[in-house]
């Protein structure tokens, strides 16, 4: 059983960042910068209260904040620090009311930590949940889209002082507009979007995500301290499964349309000697294929790459020839397994000519 967290202190941030990197499924960006921002904000303003969505009034205003753009850019073009707050305030002024709570659009990667920094700075609680239960590359790929929550009005802000408000006809066009604006901003900007009432959030969000990443981070951290690979304990606690183990022997990675796309080949070691696995990715790992070409796991189920020795999550961008790795699979939130969910984030959306099969069925 997962422990439900009630507050996030400075000491928790290491676990949050580690768990966030794990749920990043290879993408979502390194949570590190957001962790530093959150630690600084918590030092200045105190710990962040975490609320169960059931404890929120139906007419409360919940505002997700996030970084949008290429995560690698964020490591080089550091945020000034107040852009995310600027985006939040901008959205509040459009809506004519103040946010009651902050929300995390994406539990995986950089966006697992940035909203905590915003919540601490703004003195607001954060909701225990997110819109993806992992990381995905595009902003319409959230459970809220399935429940008719509009991404707009959406506010954007960058470190130069550019500020925009979008009101688009649907969430896919929000993504398209915001993407080109982000590129113009220098590859990364801060956004506030999907403003929701408490009633909408109760229906539309994926629950417990912050507790989940904190628990994952704690497991990885404590197993690492005990010199054990965390994969076994993660498998037991999360209904996850070890899909493969081996050495990365080939990485083909290109930057296409603002995304890191490509594939990696892993040759089996030990129990997996003689076999191989191919991982296909677009920022995140989307497809794991066995040697005979049959799938072993596919989006929206989670495919995570862990260091074989330490269990440390490895991103698609840092993965390199010679790495010894574990391919770890995790079932996605059941909301993603509906027709509406699969239309947003299923294999066909990403261009794979294959019907979705659950990771449980593929590995019986």
């Amino acid at each position, binding site marked *: 059983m997962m422990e439900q967290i009630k507050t996030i202190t400075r000491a928790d941030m290491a676990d949050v960042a580690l768990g966030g990197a794990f749920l990043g499924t290879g993408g979502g960006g390194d949570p590190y910068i957001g962790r530093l921002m959150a630690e600084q904000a918590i030092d200045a303003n105190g710990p962040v209260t975490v609320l169960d969505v059931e404890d929120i009034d139906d007419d409360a205003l919940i505002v997700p904040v996030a970084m949008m753009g290429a995560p690698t850019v964020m490591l080089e073009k550091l945020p000034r620090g107040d852009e995310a707050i600027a985006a939040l305030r*901008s959205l509040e002024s459009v809506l004519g009311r103040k946010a009651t709570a902050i929300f995390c659009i994406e539990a995986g990667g950089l966006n697992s930590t940035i909203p905590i920094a915003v919540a601490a700075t703004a003195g607001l609680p954060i909701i225990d949940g997110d819109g993806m239960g992992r990381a995905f590359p595009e902003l319409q790929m959230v459970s809220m889209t399935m429940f008719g929550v509009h991404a707009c009005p959406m506010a954007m802000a960058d470190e*130069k*002082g*550019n*500020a*925009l*408000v*979008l*009101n*688009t*006809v649907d969430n896919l*066009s929000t993504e*398209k*507009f915001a993407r*080109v*604006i982000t*590129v*113009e*901003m220098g590859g990364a900007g801060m956004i506030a979007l999907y403003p929701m009432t408490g009633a909408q959030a109760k229906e539309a969000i994926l629950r417990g995500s912050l507790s989940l990443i904190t628990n994952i981070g704690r497991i990885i951290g404590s197993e690492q301290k005990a010199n054990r690979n965390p994969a076994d304990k993660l498998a037991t606690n999360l209904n996850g499964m070890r899909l493969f183990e081996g050495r990365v022997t080939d990485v083909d990675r290109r930057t296409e349309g603002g995304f890191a796309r490509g594939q990696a080949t892993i040759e089996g070691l030990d129990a997996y000697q003689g076999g191989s696995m191919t991982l296909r990715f677009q920022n995140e790992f989307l497809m794991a294929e066995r040697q005979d070409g049959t799938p072993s796991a596919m989006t929206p189920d989670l495919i995570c790459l862990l260091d074989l020795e330490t269990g440390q999550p490895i991103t698609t961008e840092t993965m390199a020839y010679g790495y010894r790795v574990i391919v770890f699979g995790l079932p996605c939130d059941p909301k993603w397994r509906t027709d509406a969910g699969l239309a947003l984030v299923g294999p066909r959306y990403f261009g794979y000519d294959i019907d979705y099969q659950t990771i449980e069925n593929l590995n019986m």
Partner: protein
Amino acid sequence: MTDVLREVTDADLDAIEIGAAILGTGGGGNPYIGKLRCREELKKGNRIPVIPLAEVPDDWLVVSLGGIGAPVVGVEKIEEGEECLRALRAVEKEMDVKVDALISAEIGGANSMEPMLTAAQAGLPVIDGDGMGRAFPEMQMCTWSIYGHREAPAAMADEKGSIVVIRDTPDDVWLERIARAVVVTMGAAAGLATQPMRGDFVKRAAVPSTITQALNLGRAVLLANENNTDPVQTVIDQENGKLLMTGKIVDLERHLKGGFSVGHISLEGFGAFERDTGRIDLQNEFLVFRRNDIVEVCVPDLVVVLDSDTGLPITTEMLRYGQRIAVLGLPAHKLMRSAEALRVVGPAAFGYDDITFVPMEGT
């Protein structure tokens, strides 16, 4: 000649179309579709009242608006028709104000018509003047921006119903960059309205009477064609212009670069110019005219290309090998020739570091 223009009527639209295209100096987009839409509005009983610049009350709020994008796209992806109106309403909402009048940022080309169309739809007057007195490719190249008005907040609207409000930017060059990226996503054509200006500022910064100017220019060309008099000479007389050359296009190079149509044409003179060769550089608009390799007229002065027989304007995308054209120089308004303006719309702003602007009257 019209005394003081108080209203644009159906009978004026054809002439304004021609005059605006001449002032477009080869660019600015085709005013034709905007003209048809204005005509539809007038048929519905809506009106286009015109306020002379000098009569604008100081405390009025005036919005400069128009289409943004690639002019060639505007002809193929026809506007839904209320893009600029939606952009106007978005700016009003953003600023929480009611706007009193509209003005064109650019009298040259398609954006001569857009404020008139929106005026008819919104029941507002247009002001007789504009922000360029011609056409230029980028938004910061207008007098509003040159003389200190900040364009943000600005709003953009597309034909599908999406609206992007640019609330703030470090400067107007950033606004242009972001708006350009947004318009590409909007399908390369959108309506854009910028932060309201006060009447006293508009009176100081607008190029005056340019709707009247376009109307009179177009009327003169139509009349000359009707009476079989020389339409080219008519334009020159009307505008204090100068005939630079009559010539045949013997070379034409034109390509798309960074969303702009860039290139040059080479001319062999005929008639009185038989011994001359000419060259015109273009970047959406005609920028520089050289006779025998020596610069004679350059931006912000207007290099205008007309069909040598009909006097009708030829835009950069209509240029063809073998065309017989008349090249005219028309003086830019003094607001476009000041030191502040030349930094933004002088030859150096278009990459000609080696050309110093000399008013065409002096060459």
